């Protein structure tokens, strides 16, 4: 096996880039940032036709991947969507679709996946009360409803991406015995409410989702407990890493372009060695982000022996480095980068949020050390 994208994946990249340039460019995204909602359902449905949510969904449910490595296909898409800070629910839809495809019952698969594949509906993932992936942070409780074989959900999930447009929520909850489970909750449901946060990342919307006696049938439980949550965390880490790679790449390219043009002291400032060396470091960082995200997708998707380490490596490095690159981009742009009109702040905001979503760098580094500890005797 080699370690590059295939011709089909490069074609997918080119098609996606063309589509986004025409239908949802960075300039288009910028226009929506001060609107109450950033989601464009028409664009999302067209994107779904290009496979944005189809890769992890089996063909019999109207899905299908480009190659035999669907998660790597998604990395290509994630990078392209990240380049333009796409506001769509790429990460949550694929996390939920992936979880249902992997762990769902035939009825769940049939009910939810075709709509997600077509982009007619979207999904959100309610991870925890404080946004971290710690099992102890789950604040939604599930209690069995006597003889009716259903469940009632009470509690709150916060920092939930794209909840306000979702038709289905995948909710992490704790059962009466304290064990973790995931439940599919249609939206709207009685007792379910959400409040959209005023957020740092102006290109996406996050919500606080409340559950007050929300009842769901037992058939909505996703079998597998904590394993399903771990699977979702890994998927989310890989997909968000891919978005961060694309966004960092664009920020880097924009910075190089600017430094080739900007003249001070009678020279382009990109000719100063102090600047060149900083850009060289950014080259290293972008390339390292790329390979970390790509390898994580490949290893997790193919179930390689080091899949968990690979995901933790991406989680340890990628989003923190994306934020670091935005900081450098801002500094190297100088005053113009400090303005609202310039795109640097949009990327900086995206980066700061990606850093803390789905486990921050410190969480993933701790996870990596634990995995290494298991391999060292004594």
């Amino acid at each position: 096996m080699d370690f590059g994208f295939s011709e089909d994946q490069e074609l997918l990249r080119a098609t996606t880039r063309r589509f986004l340039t025409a239908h949802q460019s960075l300039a288009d995204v910028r226009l929506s940032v001060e609107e109450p909602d950033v989601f464009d359902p028409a664009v999302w449905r067209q994107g779904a036709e290009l496979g944005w949510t189809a890769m992890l969904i089996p063909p019999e449910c109207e899905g299908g991947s480009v190659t035999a490595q669907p998660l790597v296909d998604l990395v290509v898409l994630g990078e392209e969507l990240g380049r333009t800070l796409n506001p769509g629910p790429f990460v949550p839809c694929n996390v939920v679709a992936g979880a249902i495809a992997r762990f769902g019952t035939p009825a769940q698969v049939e009910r939810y996946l075709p709509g997600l594949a077509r982009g007619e509906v979207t999904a959100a993932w309610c991870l925890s009360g404080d946004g971290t992936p710690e099992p102890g942070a789950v604040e939604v409780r599930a209690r069995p409803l006597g003889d009716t074989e259903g469940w009632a959900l009470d509690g709150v999930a916060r920092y939930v991406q794209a909840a306000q447009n979702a038709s289905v929520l995948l909710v992490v909850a704790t059962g009466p015995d304290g064990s973790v489970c995931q439940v599919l909750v249609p939206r709207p449901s009685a007792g379910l409410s959400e409040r959209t946060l005023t957020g740092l990342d102006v290109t996406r919307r996050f919500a606080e989702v409340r559950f007050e006696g929300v009842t769901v049938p037992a058939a909505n439980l996703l079998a597998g407990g904590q394993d399903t949550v771990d699977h979702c965390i890994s998927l989310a880490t890989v997909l968000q890493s891919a978005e961060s790679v694309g966004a960092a790449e664009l920020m880097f390219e924009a910075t190089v372009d600017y430094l080739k043009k900007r003249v001070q002291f009678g020279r382009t400032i990109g000719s100063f060695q102090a600047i060149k060396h900083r850009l060289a470091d950014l080259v290293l960082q972008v390339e390292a982000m790329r390979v970390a995200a790509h390898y994580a997708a490949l290893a997790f998707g193919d179930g390689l022996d080091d899949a968990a380490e690979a995901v933790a490596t991406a989680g340890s490095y990628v989003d923190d480095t994306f934020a670091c690159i935005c900081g450098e981009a801002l500094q190297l742009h100088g005053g113009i980068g400090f303005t609202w009109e310039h795109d640097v702040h949009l990327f900086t905001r995206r980066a700061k949020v990606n850093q803390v979503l789905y486990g921050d760098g410190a969480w993933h580094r701790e996870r990596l050390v634990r995995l290494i500890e298991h391999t060292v005797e004594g």
Partner: protein
Amino acid sequence: MDVIVPPIPEAYDEYRATLQAFISAHKPALTWKQRTGVRVPDSAADIALLRRYVRDLHEAGYRLDRFSVSSERGDPHEQRILEQELGAAGVPYILGNPLVAGALRYFGTDEQRAAYFPPMARGEHIWTQLFSEPDAGSDLTSLQTRATMVDDEYVVVGQKVWSTWAQWADYGYLLARTEPVEGAGGITAFILDMRSPGVDVRPLREMTGTTDFNEVFFDEVRIPAANIIGAPGEGWRVAGASLAEERTGVGSAGGGGGNDPGQRLVRLARRTRRQGRPAIEDGAVRQQIGDLAARSRIQRHLGQRIATKAMRGQITPADAPIAKIWFSELNLQTTEAALALLGPRSMAVEGDELAEEDGRWQDAFLYARAWTIAGGSNEIMRNLIAERGLGLPREPRGQAQSESPSPS
């Protein structure tokens, strides 16, 4: 070639076991100790033992593809096992600097390959590289060692430095100026018999306290014209090709064997203490190990990516410098982290009973600067990335006009 290497099938267990048995039966007991880095044995007796060990391996059929004259390749799993087990044996199994192999493969004649590959593979010929000079380090194309044509022979006058293995070398891979032009265009690559009259090798002791490099002086050393690699004036391209071949291999081999930096640091942190507790229980220590371990894994992936690009013919000028900077700086930071973990105990080095792992970390720390400086200092690597990779303006040149500082 597999870049993401598949697991080695169980059918190869027997090959591995046989090889292990062979190695333990034939591995020489050296007085010299193998340390981290490109390190060179310090006694003629050890060199003799190593030559015999390499010959024994070769005769038993344990042969590395890199010295194969033909394009025939060994079984890839066997090659991997061979590299793994020979590496784990803790004694050198490639004697000398093998850089010339890439030069001969791409620019040498059939006669040269037939003459020099087999003795390299058998441990009969030890090679050294004669590139850097006291006044031509990062700016290698300004090298001044001169080879002048006199009656079908070249006569070499000058001085080289930072040559590993030169004190034991049978042959040297020499860059010298033959043409009446400054810069890269005037350089020619040669095969030099190190026993030629006028070659004077003086070992250098480095900050590690060991002697791994040499100065080499040439006082009217004669080289037959047939010993040119490639064509006169083509030396810079030859050197670039051999370095590229060498660099693309960096990092693609992968870790394993329980010796990756993350595992080493975890072991160390279990044995050392912070705030009265094992250091491995300290959150800051765990974060640092996690960071270094992640970047160590990324190093491997950068190597895998470069190997893939090489196979697809997509190598860019930034690729080798990226891998080189990443590896050398991570290596330095890893050794610094280890010394910090050791705390006051890091004061005790090899030879002292208090030394941790017989001083491997302190030696690795001191040696780490060889990687950040040698093979093109990291500052030169950054220039290359910015200028050749990003197309930013070149640094202004002084009077001795030289080309882009490509290989070294």
